[in-house]
């Protein structure tokens, strides 16, 4: 699969890097106060960030709020962005930190509780799940059902395994960038991804 190349080499002048990477150019313009550049970055990355956050939090409503928070943080701390690192790494680092904080907050349970009584209770969070009793390989499992099974299995993964798997296998970040986002070593990322894929294999083997 296509994976983004590893971290950009250090000590490269910002202008050179800006010409090589359009996101760096945009971010430099955001640092200069240009809100149009911020809007462009938002439109480019928010679909990926929203999908990532949705899978991490398993909640559509909260995912939209956290996605907003991600980009507000991008803007708030725009002065801290260094062109040596890829913008995608930076934005997914922020997203991962916010998601992990969110998952570890007991108050998240409160928010879920508040939604329990919603009039729209029939609306399920996240993709709908196929009925396990109704689906089997002998009935020719569709690719869509496999995707749903995978999404469900991903939601069951421990947080860091989930983040490592999503960032590397779906968002295509290099292991070094995933390590940077998770604040751990590359070796640790590989171990996380290995354990995650083993769990997924066990969960969806019959459908593969």
């Amino acid at each position, binding site marked *: 699969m296509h994976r983004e190349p590893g971290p950009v080499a250090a000590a490269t002048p910002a202008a050179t890097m800006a010409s090589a990477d359009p996101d760096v150019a945009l971010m430099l313009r955001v640092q200069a106060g240009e*809100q149009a550049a911020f809007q462009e970055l*938002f439109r480019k990355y928010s679909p990926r960030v929203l*999908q990532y956050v949705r899978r991490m939090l398993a909640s559509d409503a909260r995912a939209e709020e956290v996605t907003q928070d991600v980009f507000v943080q991008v*803007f708030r701390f725009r002065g801290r962005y260094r062109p040596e690192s890829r913008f995608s790494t930076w934005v997914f680092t922020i997203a991962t930190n916010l998601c992990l904080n969110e998952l570890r907050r007991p108050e998240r349970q*409160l928010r879920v509780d508040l939604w329990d009584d919603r009039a729209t209770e029939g609306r399920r969070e996240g993709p709908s799940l196929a009925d396990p009793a109704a689906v089997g390989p002998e009935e020719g499992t569709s*690719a869509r059902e496999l995707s749903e099974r995978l999404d469900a299995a991903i939601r069951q993964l421990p947080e860091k395994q989930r983040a490592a798997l999503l960032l590397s296998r779906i968002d295509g970040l290099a292991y070094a960038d995933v390590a940077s986002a998770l604040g751990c070593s590359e070796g640790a990322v590989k171990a996380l991804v290995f354990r995650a*894929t083993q769990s997924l*294999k066990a969960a969806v083997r019959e459908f*593969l």
Partner: protein
Amino acid sequence: MRCGRARRWMAAALDDELTVRRRRALDRHLARCAACRDEMAVSGRLAEALARLPMTAEVPAAVEQATLRRVRLLAADQGERALWLRVFVPALATAGIVVLAVLGTLRLPSGRPEVRSGTRETTAARRAEKPVAVAEASRTARPARHGRPPGPPPALAAAPELFVDLPLLHNMEKLEHFDAIRMTTLDDDTSGDARQSNG
């Protein structure tokens, strides 16, 4: 090569990150081990299935609008703060000096010879107005509040603390009877909170 190592190398092999030497070693193992061949095939299909999962989601327009609104407020707040430090603090300091100077002038002894009484009164009146005008100018120069959400709807404005405390209110029964709940024993309680709190 043992199967355990082969399975650990499979992911790297699928990502084309295995060295040539290791890839050959893995291939030799797969040639003799049917179980690992199956596992490699499953790993490959899983990788394809994961790659087929959608990477993006449609972002509702409301999310973009809310984000841009928050960012505009943040920018205004950051800009106002910077402006306040760069412009208004020196302006206030200057205004303060002017006020003090004017007040000092007003306290001069009344024996000073008048040149033109009308002019002196007019000048004094103008000077008397000036501190007020300067004070008003400094008040209006103070930046309006920014960095806050937009004005609340009536229901929110009527009881803002209700909404700040909403999660607490949602759990009020638990909080009111917190200790009693913690003392409740469950079937699998061996030590239990009751004993711990009494101990």
